[in-house]
């Protein structure tokens, strides 16, 4: 029963959040602030993870190809498809769920327990829309760029570390990257990214916005935000894959 209650509360929350901003100037200011704090600030961690993820993928695949009948360019192909289909959109989004989700939930939770949200409401501000809408839209806008960067870096990491390990040659790897390329995979990845961006930001905002109590509860709601957004993200990943690739 509790599940349905929470779900209902979540959808009502989304209704509050998606209402027209009361002041567009403020909205845009906040939007670009969030693009920077949720997006650009996550770039370093995404770059590092993508490079090494690509590296590990390439080396693993190369070592696992023992049959002489499988051409070596298959390493490039396998790396490419794994990165496009799952590693960049899903794993990077999961990492963002941890980083961005906990920061959104604790920021809003803190504002809730120190009555800053009440102060906004008393002024006549729609606090849900004012605080949360810029975050959701900023993530939906910036995350696809982050994921595309991650894709390129993942493949670059595969090439660089594959060469260093001596398991592939540039020619074979690049040939593999281009071999039997399905452009739809990129669209598929970006659609997933946008859905995940929405889920991560809205779910974490939900838990922060309705936090109750003090510092302890803010911590709890921040943990919940990460756990729930990760689980629901993976669930959505399964559903989207089923729907779009079958």
């Amino acid at each position, binding site marked *: 029963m509790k599940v349905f209650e929470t779900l209902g509360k979540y959808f009502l929350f989304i209704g509050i959040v998606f209402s027209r901003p009361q002041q567009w100037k403020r909205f845009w200011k906040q939007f670009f602030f969030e693009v920077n704090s949720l997006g650009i600030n996550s770039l370093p961690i995404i770059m590092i993870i993508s490079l090494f993820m690509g590296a590990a993928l390439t080396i693993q695949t190369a070592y696992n190809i023992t049959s002489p009948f499988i051409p070596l360019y298959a390493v490039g192909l396998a790396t490419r498809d794994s990165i496009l289909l799952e590693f960049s959109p899903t794993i990077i989004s999961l990492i963002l769920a941890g980083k961005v989700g906990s920061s959104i939930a604790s920021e809003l939770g803190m504002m809730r327990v120190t009555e*800053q949200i*009440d*102060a906004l409401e*008393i*002024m006549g501000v729609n606090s849900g829309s004012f605080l949360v809408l810029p975050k959701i839209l900023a993530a939906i806008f910036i995350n696809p760029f982050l994921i595309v960067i991650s894709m390129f870096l993942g493949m670059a990491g595969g090439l660089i570390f594959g060469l260093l390990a001596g398991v592939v040659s540039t020619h074979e790897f690049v040939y593999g990257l281009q071999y039997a390329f399905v452009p739809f995979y990129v669209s598929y990845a970006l659609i997933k990214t946008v859905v995940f961006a929405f889920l991560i930001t809205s779910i974490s905002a939900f838990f922060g916005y309705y936090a109750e109590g003090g510092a302890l509860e803010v911590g709890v709601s921040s943990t919940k935000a990460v756990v729930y957004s990760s689980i629901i993200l993976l669930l959505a990943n399964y559903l989207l894959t089923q729907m779009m690739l079958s």
Partner: protein
Amino acid sequence: MIEVQHISKSFSGRKILDDVSLVFETGKTNLVIGGSGSGKTVLMKCLVALYTVDEGDILYDGRQFSKSTEEDKRLLRKDFGMVFQGGALFDSQTVWENVAFPLQMFSSMHESEIKDRVEFCLNRVNLNAAYQLYPSQISGGMKKRVAIARAIALNPKYLFCDEPNSGLDPKTSIVIDNLIQEITEEYNITTVVNTHDMNSVLEIGQKIIYLNKGQKWWEGDKNSILETDNKEVNDFVYASELFQRIRKASQKL
């Protein structure tokens, strides 16, 4: 005028407000006094609909407020100014930005007018420095004063102050009390102040409600409160040594 009609409020079965009826008058500073935990903050939050009442009605100049839609609430709330017991300053914004915020959101003022207005409000609460500091960098008393400046920035029609001068030194307290009274009379607004400071009571108590255990126990003003024979009110008023001595001195005369 704010009319409160038979409101009750419970939290998880515990009755905090019990059938409270009262009227807050326009152009007067209306004080709600009572011991710690008597329900003053809960009453104020019911007034502004941060809490929904279990029973009863709240009317603003005849308009139903407690049962209106979110949209109507938002509309009326643009006429509210509120000072929270904890200040509730936006801690991602500087002192200056906090006071400018309601003006930027809801007024059609130009930047230069906003600047003048913010400076005017901060001056009235005796804060002329510290504009660029963040709430975490200023003292508790300064936070209170910034909160007051923010609450009066938009010239509210209804001003709510939850213990506006707790944590302030006696001199600043009097400045704040006088400011609240001045604004109330100058703009003819309805002001509600929660306090348990007897100085404020005698300074600005044009109408006083005494809350006890969530009930309206006594009603009067700053003169009648010294003479009432209500036991609980007397205990409250003469709790301090200072007031006991004053009473003894005046009885000798």
